[in-house]
């Protein structure tokens, strides 16, 4: 007759190995997964066996990756891992920190000195050169150029950094002022969005787990743009419906934002819903990608993420509403232009965008060819020699 201690020991041993064998067995028979939404990558498949990769041992390394990637409770383990880090109050990881407002924010450099602030105050010469080239190209046919300054999320929530973390506010303020000054020196009207966004600070205007603004944030940015265009040409009087007058739908589903992939998901920070706001009287349109007709929607309410706007980033998007009486607009910028493009379809005859990360060619040449009435340079990314560019400015 076994003692109670012996019984408990046997139970422990059996449970220990049952967990190991059970997990391994289920993983072995379960169907392999292709993609991890949380990580945004393809998962390792069973490695092919060759004499070379067996001899040098690389097959065994790949097999290990395959086993971990295809572990049946992998997503659960990832969630529990980050939940454990949340429990241990590891509030900063992989270059990001949890802000006081529960937003994920970039960790700023701790080495901010008077010289780095002064350097930020002198920023913008490269951006100014690009603006002047674009203005010159637009001037050849009478087009107008505007510079739209939109704050980065970390800049906007500078006061939400935890104690002892550097917010970089002085550097950001200096850089923002410098960019605006450069645009004004170049004779380019500035669309300043910070103040308007600030007045709606308590609303859901930036995603918690993503670096982008939400539809509300973009709405306020677009309002600032329309106000500036109307001030330049009062006869236009472009109006976009109030937010309450839009067809607003909400998708109550956790969204995996761009920051969340690096932060990791423990469940304590999330975007748990997404808003879509469409005018009831949205005009009919035809969309083109790189000159070819496209069936891609302007706003897909089935997509739970920023790529719902314009279905993501493309080199050259052109939307024609067949209303020649209305002005045309071209956005030059990265992904922050996407919801602006969507909203612009309501007010403009044609809406076009160039994303320099994917567009190859010359921005100025394209402007000379398409001759939009308004060209909006968005944020501080547009300058010759930007390493993310696939194109040139001139």
């Amino acid at each position, binding site marked *: 007759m076994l003692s109670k*201690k012996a019984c408990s020991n046997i139970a*422990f041993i059996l449970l220990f190995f049952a*967990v190991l064998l059970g997990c391994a067995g289920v993983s072995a028979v379960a169907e392999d997964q292709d993609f991890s939404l949380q990580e945004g990558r393809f998962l390792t498949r069973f490695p092919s066996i060759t004499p070379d990769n067996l001899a*040098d*041992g690389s097959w065994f390394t790949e097999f290990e990756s395959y*086993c971990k990637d295809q572990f049946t409770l*992998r997503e659960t383990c990832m969630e*529990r891992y980050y939940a*454990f880090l949340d429990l241990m109050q590891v509030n900063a990881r992989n270059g990001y920190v949890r802000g006081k407002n529960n937003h994920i924010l970039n960790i700023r450099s701790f080495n901010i000195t008077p010289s780095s602030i002064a350097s930020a105050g002198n920023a913008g010469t490269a951006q100014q050169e690009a603006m002047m080239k674009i203005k010159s190209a637009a001037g050849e046919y009478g087009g107008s150029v505007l510079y739209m300054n939109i704050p980065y999320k970390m800049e906007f929530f500078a006061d939400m950094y935890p104690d002892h973390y550097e917010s970089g506010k002085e550097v950001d303020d200096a850089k923002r002022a410098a960019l605006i000054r450069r645009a004004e020196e170049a004779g380019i009207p500035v669309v300043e969005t910070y103040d308007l966004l600030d007045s709606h600070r308590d609303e859901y205007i930036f995603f918690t787990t993503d670096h982008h603004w939400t539809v509300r944030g973009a709405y306020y940015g677009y309002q600032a743009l329309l106000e500036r265009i109307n001030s330049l040409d009062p006869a236009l009087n472009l109006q976009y419906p109030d937010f309450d007058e839009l067809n607003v739908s909400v998708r109550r589903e956790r969204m995996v934002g761009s920051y969340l992939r690096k932060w990791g998901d423990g469940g304590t920070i999330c975007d748990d819903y997404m808003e879509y706001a469409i005018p009831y009287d949205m005009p009919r349109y035809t969309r083109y990608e790189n000159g070819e007709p496209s069936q891609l929607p302007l706003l897909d309410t089935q997509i739970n993420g920023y790529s719902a706007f314009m279905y993501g980033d493309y080199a050259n998007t052109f939307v024609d509403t067949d209303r020649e009486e209305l002005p045309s607009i071209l956005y030059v910028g990265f992904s922050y232009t996407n919801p602006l493009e969507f909203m612009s379809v309501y007010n403009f005859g044609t809406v076009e965008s160039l994303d320099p990360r994917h567009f190859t060619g010359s921005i100025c040449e394209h402007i000379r060819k398409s001759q939009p009435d308004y060209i909006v340079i968005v944020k501080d990314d547009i300058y010759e020699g930007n390493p993310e560019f696939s194109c040139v400015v001139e």
Partner: protein
Amino acid sequence: MVFSSYVFLFLFFPALTILYYLIPRNRRNIRNGVLLFFSILFYGWSGPKYLILLTISVSINWFGGILIRHFSPHPHAGKAVLAAVIFCNCFLLGIFKYTDFIIYNYNILFSRGLPLQNIVLPVGISFYTFQGMSYVIDIYRKPEFCLKNPLEVALYITLFPQLVAGPIVRFSDVAEDIHHRKESLDDVVWGLYRFVFGLAKKIILADTFGILADKTFSAGSLTTGMAWIGAFAYMLQIYFDFSGYSDMAIGLGRVFGFHFCENFNYPYISSSVTEFWRRWHISLSSWFRDYVYIPLGGSRCGKLRQFLNLAVVWSLTGLWHGASWNYVLWGVYYLICLTAEKYFLHSFLDRIPFLLRRCCTLLIILFGWVLFRLESMSSVIAYIKTMFGLGLVGPGTAETITTLLNYRFFWIAGIVGSTPLMKNLYRALAAKYDSSLLFQLLRHLFVFSLFLLCIVYIIASSYNAFIYFQF
């Protein structure tokens, strides 16, 4: 294969354990055969071609043992065979570990341009070579323990728990276990407990401190505060990494009835450098003591000769860790500290308060790890200057505070885990409640929960090799 890998934990270990215990207890040879087979599989998993070298090493030591036993009535012949076998072991180790080091220094010394050979260091060669030498030396001292069966010698040298990262198991310690070990339920549970604690030390603590250490040691510019953070993080990383692995090895050995000696005994509570080396990597320091220092004369000779003996031991200790001058300097660093303690500071140290002695010892160890971690003397000097506020960047108070706060529970666990506090607390509880079933169940529950947490970490975290695999 490493103990924290999926393949080992979910496939290798359960398969081996089940197969091993399906074999009747009285079939010791078959059980040994299964262990040997799985040990070879374990080692070959990292690259089958290295099995050839392992086979050569085992063969040399087995045959050497046979010859030593044969020549045991003739001491000179036996000694010659021993010397030859040790030379062969050192030659193998030297070829794979020190060839490029020798070529590099030869080129500098004689202004030559011989090409480096870029020989890949086989995993665990420093460990199993030393184990092989331990075998032949122990056979020389006690020829009656010679193993005629080469498979038993192979089992001793290749036994997977200690094959690739120690502890360096003396043949005399496990000779009895090879033939007459008794596996028991209590030993299996004890072994699993020890394995889980070691796994947790490695996966949860060592890897976390490793992130901090890597960040600071690879930073282009470093603040004073972060330099100290990095040094302490590395100190904790290397302890939990290596002692965690030793715990796993000892635990796994116990599951199969082997009783390996302890390799660490809370070295960071030492009150002197001498004491530190009695608590840190005990198997290596005792190996050098018994097989190099004492045969050279040890302390049973004049002071100058004793110092020379220590110099040899500590140079070899440094060199064992890596084929680089910083490791040799690290060994010399401890030679100086130990010599100073022994000959000049002994009476002074006895007079200073115990806590201050511990703090000073800890600082000496800390600087030793900085020397160990950085490969060039210029980097070491720059790092230590930064630690004392002489770097190019300022104190970095904010970053230091945020790093401490962000990982506060890990720091606390690391500091507490470096002391015998939890062990003493457990012993006090066990002394009172060990017979209680509830206490046993709670103990099982705690270890099982820790085990599940380790699984979570393994699946979720990226792959990370043990530090001591390079040796």
